[in-house]
């Protein structure tokens, strides 16, 4: 954030909100609309404020850690990987990840020949019931418009450069299916435990903008 703009008089209390909306400092129109709809629904008895709070708590209790565990298991267990590619919700359930409320989830396997990159150009569809809320950049109009037109340039900005022989396959999450990428297991991870592998599977690698890097195994 630049130093040239003082936010202290805006009365937000904290500064962990996004500032990439137009009219920096103002409450975005969409947020105002959501608040107005929420208070009307509560007022009319359609939902309770408690039910909304529980729903939000449940959503943010979903984290990319779920996806990392699923990918790590797929890396060490080929039979599990096949079940994951056939039915990702059921495979998540095997690891105790409750995806019952999720729409259908399809796992896209990255290989030496094909690299998947997920975007939702029409809104911000994301496997929230598995991974929690999407990253802010995933919802930005810049990512949503550019990922389909110039995916390699977008990935390069995340530090990912793929050779021309690799097919970059953009998957636009338009309808009733949600997508999770199963990245390639990096070299240099032979003998790693499932927990050590899960630690290098980042949220962004589950969308396909980056690839996991081996580095040194972390103590887990």
């Amino acid at each position, binding site marked *: 954030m630049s130093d040239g703009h003082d936010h202290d008089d805006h009365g937000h209390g904290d500064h962990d909100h996004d500032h990439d909306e137009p009219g920096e400092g103002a409450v975005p129109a969409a947020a105002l609309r959501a608040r107005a709809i929420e208070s009307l629904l509560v007022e009319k008895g359609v939902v309770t404020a408690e039910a909304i709070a529980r729903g939000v708590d449940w959503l943010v209790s979903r984290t990319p850690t779920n996806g990392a565990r699923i990918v790590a298991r797929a890396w060490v267990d080929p039979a599990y990987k096949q079940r994951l590619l056939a039915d990702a919700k059921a495979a998540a359930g095997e690891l105790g990840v409750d995806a019952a409320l999720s729409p*259908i989830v399809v796992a896209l396997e990255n290989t030496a020949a094909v690299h998947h990159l997920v975007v939702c*150009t*029409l809104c911000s569809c994301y496997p929230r019931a598995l991974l929690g809320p999407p990253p802010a950049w995933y919802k930005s109009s810049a990512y949503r418009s550019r990922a*389909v*037109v*110039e*995916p*390699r*340039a977008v990935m390069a900005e995340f530090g990912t450069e793929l050779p*021309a*022989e690799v*097919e*970059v*396959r*953009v*998957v*636009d*999450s*338009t*309808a*009733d*299916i949600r997508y999770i990428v199963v990245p390639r297991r990096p070299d240099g991870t032979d003998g790693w435990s499932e927990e050590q592998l899960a630690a290098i599977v980042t949220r962004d690698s589950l969308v396909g903008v980056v690839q996991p890097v081996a580095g040194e195994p972390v103590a887990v």
Partner: protein
Amino acid sequence: MTLAPGQRVRVLEGASVGHVRTPTYVKGKHGTVAGSRGSFRNPETLAFGGDGQPARPLYYVGFRQADLWPDYAGPATDTLYLDLYEHWLEEA
């Protein structure tokens, strides 16, 4: 109409009125059916208080990036896939 994997299709060019899940950038473009996703309630009516019936078959359809964007900068083998409802597709 049932579309089998490998079937060439063209995306229809109707106007996007309501909750249409067919992005403008694929309208009029040619692609290839990669698989079926099953049938789902039609979001175009479901989103406006309707029941979304009849359910619409949904297909996973692949396109060559070079067919979508005349100035595509990447290799000719790069692709884009998305899920499209049957009523937005015609055999080509």
